[in-house]
């Protein structure tokens, strides 16, 4: 999410969903919120009830549009043109929030005079290198004036994404950037912005989007009249923005708009990024991405610049802003990984971290796999054979593996591709050995989910999974144990990281189910121990005042009797006080490295009993005395026995609900909330009061945790040579940024340009009407092979714009929903939504069978002819658009054409995101000639004959929704 990271500092949704109820106007674009996030959609509905205006802009009239006050249909892939026109309106009508913009954004900062805009260079920024299809910010003079410029960081060089950097969004300035508050300087950001967006007039944008200029002006007026001191507007987006070759820049455009309108960091404002999967936010926080370490630290790359820890910190850390603490984060992470084996002498095991040597994100990996360059793969909770881009290619990849492990609830496409794929070769020709591990579902395991608003919520285990089903955590934990056993006796130095890895999450007690029975599952890790490790703990001796709080040592607790005493202590004795129980848990909470011998403290007890959990990341140290698995999560487990992710205290008077779960960072629900007060620390208005400076208490107060140093006064001004947080002034709310400001112009952190520019999708039936010289994004990466053909440029063969979408009734490619009869009956078949115009042109009737073809493949589906789909007038001709739900494939109770057999493998330059939301296709009235998939699971006529569950067993958390008694 570098779009948000480069603009504001952190790549995550800035506000929380409940806060949408405080908005005066909500612009939903690139999101089908009512269908894809129906539960969260209650908050826009609340806002609507209070009188807010809801706007939906989308290629399709969806269930979201039905509930909004205003709908504007646009062509898929024209988002930047539309948003650019909104920015144009704000600038040309002088509707921007002057005080906010001047104080909190880099509008007045002066950019190097060498910088050339797309307006000057025909759709390209300065610094473009065609041979490497990439930009060099240094050669392009994107930096602030006075700074000698610097190229991309090591971690973002070459072919892989900038996940890490985006979150820092760091321009490496060690001195104060030059500013011109009068905004007269020709190279100040505001004037660059004005020139850049000059051509995005409503008329020009309407030609690109296929809507009317009136609609654009009307929406701009609505946003402007609902922003300012008294009012705030919010923007909601989802994968309808991200899944484009210009996805990051679309989000940047929204960031610019919200900064100009002064909606960032304020209640009812912000940008809500609606995430696509359960806990996908968590998976980026704790990092399942190949180029990130937990907490958005960069995975070191295979380069001399990352050879030593010092080099790495120097290159990745930043001198000013919160990232000055980079060394604390990485050292504490290494201590959590390697325990006592990580010492100052061996750089805390920094050398053991794997180095990135190229792009190993999903798309290039499957491209390589399809070329036969890989042997094995483990799939946990993913279904590339059904849901992957160009799924045909991804299946070809799986077919070329030697072995594949699939852990899932059902036998998904990825588990049965070798026998049930109607387009594949006979199974006798497939060499892949597939191991299927039945997985436990979410009610059969415990743990946290991190949702779209960075909120960690614990869910308890309700019952044991049936049969051999096990949680993913069980699988990974057991795999790790076996690997450690395998390498235990090795003397090869390259096995040292596995030997040194701390891997001790065994539970102290067998798990107890809610009905009081003991779980029959063994070998599960203790998830709370893992969360404690993510939270972090102190390794040093206790502080004097804490020694008193530690429990008295038990007499038997001596060296020779350690194992015995451990087993004795594992059972709770009736006389044992709460404090002792806590202390006992704490002692076991901290993982002790297997290699380390038990050491003793002064009392003769095990030293690890003295470990104290961190109360927040401000307690982190860089000398190896703290361990922390994911610094942004620090504070979720502030003390033994207090798992804040489990907390469910309602605070009806405070909409931020700070005692419900735990939001990173540091339970701040609304990020950059310093901006909810004016530069002097007073609320912008009584109506939009949130966090303000209390001069008497000398601290920031309000409903939420301040996302700012709690006692830094608004009039604080940093000295010339200040470093770290001291360099951030008291009126600079974007503390993750080196200059503390929101970035209208991004001198760094975005690979495809400092400002958003409209480029056509890679496959578009329309030329770029705004920049005729440059059709698609100049930095987009393609993977050409005969399995991944692209219909470049405007093509007569594929004249129809296709857009994939989601239905409420199904989940993603269907691995969780197409095995459920109750969901299948609601949406039983693959269909294509098309306008009556297209249907008439091709002689298609509602419900007819049609074939949809793209350059990658063809599928068969039913026609749903509806006015909700629209054909648009673009540049004087009719362009048809169709919508394809991507929920079907060849495994499950209902099977059908897979929309992802049509999509292409292309990669956005920043995050290697594909362009599933727009591609070119052709639609014909015909059935597909070839083998059709058959259902791999038969629906039972009556779901079950088991006795109807007794009401009292229905232990489901009710939540706080008051309707219906």
């Amino acid at each position, binding site marked *: 999410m570098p779009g948000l990271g480069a603009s504001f500092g952190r790549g995550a949704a800035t506000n929380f969903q409940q806060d949408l109820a405080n908005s005066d106007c909500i612009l939903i674009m690139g999101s089908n919120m*009512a*269908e894809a996030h*129906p539960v969260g*959609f*209650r908050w826009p*509905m609340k806002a609507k009830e209070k009188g807010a205006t809801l706007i939906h802009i989308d290629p399709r*009239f969806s*269930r*979201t*549009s*039905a*509930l909004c006050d205003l*709908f504007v*249909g646009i062509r898929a892939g024209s988002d930047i043109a539309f948003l650019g026109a909104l920015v144009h309106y704000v600038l040309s009508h002088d509707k921007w929030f002057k005080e906010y913009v001047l104080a909190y954004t880099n509008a007045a900062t002066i950019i190097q005079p060498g910088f050339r805009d797309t307006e000057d260079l025909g759709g390209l920024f300065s610094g473009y290198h065609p041979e490497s299809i990439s930009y060099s910010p240094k050669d392009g003079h994107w930096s602030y004036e006075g700074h000698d410029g610097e190229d991309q960081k090591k971690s973002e060089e070459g072919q892989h994404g900038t996940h890490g950097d985006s979150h820092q969004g760091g321009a490496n300035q060690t001195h104060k950037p030059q500013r011109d508050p009068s905004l007269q300087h020709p190279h100040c950001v505001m004037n660059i912005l004005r020139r850049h967006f000059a051509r995005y007039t409503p008329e020009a944008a309407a030609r690109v989007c*296929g*809507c*009317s200029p009136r*609609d654009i002006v009307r929406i701009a007026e609505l946003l402007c009249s609902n922003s300012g001191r008294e009012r705030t507007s919010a923007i909601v987006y989802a994968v309808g923005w991200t899944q484009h070759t210009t996805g990051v820049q679309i989000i940047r455009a929204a960031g610019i708009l919200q900064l100009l309108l002064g909606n960032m960091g304020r209640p009812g404002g912000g940008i809500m990024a609606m995430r696509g999967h359960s806990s996908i936010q968590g998976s980026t926080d704790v990092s399942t991405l190949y180029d990130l370490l937990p907490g958005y630290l960069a995975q070191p790359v295979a380069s001399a610049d990352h050879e030593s820890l010092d080099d790495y910190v120097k290159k990745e850390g930043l001198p000013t802003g919160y990232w000055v603490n980079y060394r604390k984060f990485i050292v504490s992470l290494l201590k959590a990984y390697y325990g006592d084996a990580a010492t100052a002498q061996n750089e805390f095991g920094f050398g053991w971290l794997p180095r990135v040597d190229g792009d190993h994100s999903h798309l290039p990996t499957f491209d390589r796999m399809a070329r036969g360059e890989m042997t094995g793969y483990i799939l946990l909770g993913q279904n590339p054979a059904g849901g992957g881009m160009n799924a045909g290619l991804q299946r070809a990849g799986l077919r070329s593996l030697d072995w594949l492990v699939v852990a899932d609830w059902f036998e998904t496409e990825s588990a049965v591709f070798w026998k049930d794929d109607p387009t594949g070769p006979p199974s006798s020709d497939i060499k892949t050995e597939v191991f299927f591990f039945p997985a436990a579902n979410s009610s059969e395991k415990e743990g946290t989910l991190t949702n779209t608003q960075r909120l960690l919520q614990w869910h308890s285990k309700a019952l044991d999974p049936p049969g051999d089903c096990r949680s993913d955590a069980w699988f990974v934990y057991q795999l790790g144990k076996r690997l450690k056993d395998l390498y235990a006796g090795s003397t090869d130095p390259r096995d040292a990281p596995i030997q040194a890895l701390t891997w001790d999450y065994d539970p102290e007690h067998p798990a107890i189910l809610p009905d009081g029975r003991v779980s029959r599952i063994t070998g599960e890790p203790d998830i709370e121990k893992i969360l404690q490790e993510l939270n972090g703990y102190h390794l040093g001796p206790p502080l004097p005042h804490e020694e008193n709080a530690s429990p008295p040592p038990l007499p038997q607790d001596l060296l020779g009797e350690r194992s015995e005493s451990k087993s004795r202590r594992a059972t709770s004795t009736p006389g044992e006080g709460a404090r002792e129980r806590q202390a006992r848990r704490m002692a076991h909470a901290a993982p002790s490295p297997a290699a380390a011998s038990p050491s003793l403290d002064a009392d003769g007890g095990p030293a690890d009993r003295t470990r104290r959990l961190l109360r927040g990341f401000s307690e982190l140290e860089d000398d190896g005395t703290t361990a922390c698995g994911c610094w942004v999560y620090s504070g979720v487990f502030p003390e033994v026995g207090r798992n804040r992710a489990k907390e469910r205290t*309602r605070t009806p008077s405070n909409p931020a609900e700070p005692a419900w779960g735990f939001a990173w960072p540091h339970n701040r629900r609304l990020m950059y909330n310093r901006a909810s007060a004016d530069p002097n620390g007073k609320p912008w208005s009584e109506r939009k009061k949130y966090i303000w400076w209390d001069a008497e208490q000398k601290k920031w107060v309000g409903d939420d945790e301040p996302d700012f140093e709690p006692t830094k006064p608004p009039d604080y001004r940093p000295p010339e040579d200040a470093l770290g947080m001291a360099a951030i002034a008291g009126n600079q709310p974007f503390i993750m940024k080196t200059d503390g400001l929101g970035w209208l112009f991004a001198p760094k952190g975005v690979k495809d340009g400092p400002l958003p520019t409209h480029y056509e999708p890679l496959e578009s039936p329309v030329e770029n009407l705004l920049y005729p010289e440059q059709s698609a994004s100049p930095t987009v990466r393609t993977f050409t092979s005969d399995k991944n053909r692209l219909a470049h440029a405007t093509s007569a063969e594929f004249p129809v714009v296709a857009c994939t979408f989601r239905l*409420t009734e199904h989940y993603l490619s269907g691995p969780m929903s197409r095995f459920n*009869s*109750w*969901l*299948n*009956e609601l*949406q*039983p078949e693959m*269909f294509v939504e098309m306008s*009556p*115009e297209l249907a*008439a042109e091709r002689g298609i009737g509602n*419900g007819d069978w049609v074939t949809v073809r793209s350059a990658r493949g063809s599928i068969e589906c*039913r*026609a*749903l002819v*509806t*006015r*909700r789909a*629209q*054909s*648009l*007038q673009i540049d004087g001709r*009719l362009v048809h658009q169709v919508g394809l739900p991507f929920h079907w494939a060849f495994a499950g109770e*209902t099977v059908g054409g897979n929309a992802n057999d049509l999509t292409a493998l292309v990669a956005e330059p920043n995050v290697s995101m594909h362009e599933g939301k727009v591609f070119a296709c052709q639609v014909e009235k015909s059935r597909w000639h070839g083998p059709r998939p058959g259902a791999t699971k038969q*629906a039972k*006529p*009556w*779901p079950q004959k088991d006795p*109807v569950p007794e*009401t*009292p*067993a*229905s*232990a*489901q958390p*009710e939540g706080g*929704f008051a*309707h*219906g*008694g």
Partner: protein
Amino acid sequence: MAVRELELGSVPSQREVKPRRFWSRLFEPFRRGRQPKPQPPTGFYTDTTVCIGCKACEVACKQWNQLPADGFEFTGNSYDNTGKLSAESWRHVKFIEQFTREIEGSPPAPRISLDVVSPPDWSRWLMMSDVCKHCAAAPCQQACPTGAIITNEFANVYIQPDICNGCAYCIAACPFGVITRSHFDGHAHKCTLCYDRQKDGLVPACAKACPTASIQFGTVEELRTRARQRVEKLQASGVQAYLYGDTPTETYSEMNSFYLLVDKPEVYGLPESPFNPWLHLRGDYLRTAIAALAGLALFTIAIVFKGG
């Protein structure tokens, strides 16, 4: 945190186990248990203006009541693949696509000439979660010959499946087409208003699952007040909203499950003025009785005169 579901685990079962006395058994041989105390009437208020068509109510209903999926059939009728209320589907979300042409009364022509394409004038996509209306005077109950359909202590219309003989009179009697007979067991089934959940103090499954409070559950009195306030508010903002089924008409009783609609009832597939078949029958009974009396009188007169 009010979690009724969690509290229930510790509540002892309150099933009546006391043996009945001889006289009680003699005079009321079929009585099972004690008649429950009447409770304030409960029902549903369905605000169609906030329905997002997510069908969570349909799934929650099927899950709680363990109803079968009744076929995987693509209808092509907007997103409605349920089709109708039936013994297997007690909730049915309707989707009504209304675009300018349709409102003007001309259905979209199968061939639309291309010159009319302009930025389409979008109007509305109405959604409504339909369910049994739980009529205060329910024709199905009036028609039931076995007494299987009762009004329970919450004033909900409830079919006792073990007493239903599958005669299907209720199906013909319901003016809303709510009830059908199950293909699986031959009995009539419909929404029970989650009688079992209500007895435990729980909200019916559909209302519980509804994410936008389109389906609201509560006492009818409270719901009516809430609904009328909502109508006033909507009307003040220019929406043509009204309540359907909240007051009795000349031909039909009020309904405990009523709707806030923004278009004519027919648009939602509801009868504009529902008619209780009993009103027809009332005349028939009267005429039959008069005819019988008249016949009897004629007969008597004939006997008297002939005998005289």
